[in-house]
């Protein structure tokens, strides 16, 4: 079966995020960019399903500027077979991303679509669910285990109270949580081979989607920072502060 994986280009998770002085957004100039960590987990899961013989082909799609091809190449080096780049310099919001992915799904007809549960940039946690709704697919969100068998996929989900398993008819959408797997690193030979793998380029208009943002960001500010407090010498000092100064115990 065919698996479609979407990946997003975001600020590398090790980079300290800085807000621009004019409050218009986060400073992205000269900042290291990388594949969103949840998307790396999505790629890894698809590759593992291919290693197990469950998947026959992995198509990776990314929406974003020309530079997003770097993240597609990373996914190809990790084991995806083919790339689709939906190129735009515009800001793409979750609903629009879901509409773009929907039209890719209609063309490619994958049995499984795997996405990260959220990007570490906008933290929206929406696109997978929206794609599932627009295509009428079921969804296994925040997955910590994915088992495909007998025309269904069983997804174990990380929920507030613990774990919950659902069985979904194929095709369906899975969004990844942190503990689904530990992504591999791409080897140098695979990075070289990835350059020869097919990569299609298209625009949102080619897919019949007009980008029409529904939100505008009025300002972006740094969070109120907490001041470091005092060091106490010992446990007795700590208990004293908590009882008599903070009055919380």
């Amino acid at each position, binding site marked *: 079966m065919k698996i479609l994986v979407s990946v997003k280009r975001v600020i590398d998770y090790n980079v*300290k*995020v800085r*807000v621009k002085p004019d409050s218009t957004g*986060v400073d992205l100039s000269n900042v290291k960019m990388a594949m969103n960590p949840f998307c790396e987990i999505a790629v890894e899961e698809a590759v593992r399903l291919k290693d197990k013989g469950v998947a026959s082909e992995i198509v990776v799609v990314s929406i974003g500027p020309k530079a997003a091809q770097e993240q597609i190449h990373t996914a190809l080096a990790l084991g995806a077979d083919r790339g689709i780049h939906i190129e735009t310099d515009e800001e793409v919001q*979750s*609903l629009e991303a879901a509409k773009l992915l929907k039209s890719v799904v209609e063309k490619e007809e994958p049995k499984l679509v795997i996405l990260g549960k959220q990007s*570490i*940039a906008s*933290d*929206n946690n*929406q696109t*997978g*669910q*929206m794609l*599932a*709704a*627009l295509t009428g*697919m*079921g*969804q296994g*969100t*925040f997955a910590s285990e994915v088992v495909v068998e007998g025309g269904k996929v*069983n997804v174990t989900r*990380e*929920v*507030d*109270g*613990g*774990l*919950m*398993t*659902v*069985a*979904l*008819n194929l095709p369906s959408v899975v969004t990844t*949580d942190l*503990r689904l797997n530990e992504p591999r690193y791409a080897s140098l030979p695979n990075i070289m081979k990835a350059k020869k793998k097919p990569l299609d380029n298209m625009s949102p208009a080619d897919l019949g989607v007009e980008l029409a943002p*529904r*939100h*505008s*960001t*009025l*300002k972006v*500010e*740094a*969070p109120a920072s*907490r001041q*470091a*407090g*005092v*060091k*106490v010498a*010992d*446990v*007795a000092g*700590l208990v004293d502060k*908590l009882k008599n100064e*903070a009055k*919380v*115990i």
Partner: protein
Amino acid sequence: MSILVIAEHDNSELKQATLNVLATAKAIGGDIDVLVAGENCGAVGEAVAKAEGVSQVLVADNAVYGHFLGENLGELVAGVDKGYSHILTAAGTTGKDFMPRVAALLDVAQVSDIIRVESEDTFVRPIYAGNAIATVKSTDRIKVITVRPTAFDPVAGEGGSATVEAVDVVKDAGRSLFVNEELAKSDRPDLASAGIVVSGGRGMQNGENFKMLEQIADLMGAVVGASRAAVDAGFVPNDMQVGQTGKIVAPQLHIAVGISGAIQHLAGMSDSKVIVAINKDEEAPTFQVADYGLVADLFEALAEFTDKLAK
């Protein structure tokens, strides 16, 4: 304006987060209705009818909603057509699962995890794991919103007298089936609404050592949490994780033990009123946000702390 709040509950009890979301609705202003969808959830409907400020409670009681599957809840909520200007729910794992489906079915965007209401169409939400705070204006005709419950003080759970009406709509998308769940059994309160949280990190070394934290939690009426590092290391299950991708907590007191303080954990604890850090590494980033820091061997410190509390 009229606002629909989707209640969070477990079919028998209303979750406190719903009262926090009702406070968000109150801040937006307008008539407030609540939808309770579940199976044998009549008691929840009665409970939320007593909450402050609720006009009407709609109860959709059917087996298809019993496990809160996103496919079915999405269709149900998107189909409740009473001219609501806002649809709100808590940004827990249930709300995060079904709400984007509601938005997509209504062809509107969603504003996720808001922490403040500026006006009826403008909301404040954390991005980049809380390292930046965005003010977002929505131009959609219906505002679909998930709310970070700890950012709003709950409305009173008693004193109201809303009408309760059954909603006889059965939406079964037929795409998913509940198989099973493994929910942590605990007599302690929810992490997300706990007054005191004692959380452990990789410095706890193993799951066995978390018993020391449980002992302290029992003495203080607290709840035990964990950093992502401790969960990833397999010391404790995922439902204990505090942080941007785990649970956001806002207790009166948060004691972080053996947690170095990765950015994303700090983001999940920064709303705590008083933070205590106990770590043997003087340079640990947690000390930068802690009101009280203790540099010490944490096992010795925990033993002594337990003794002092027990007295």
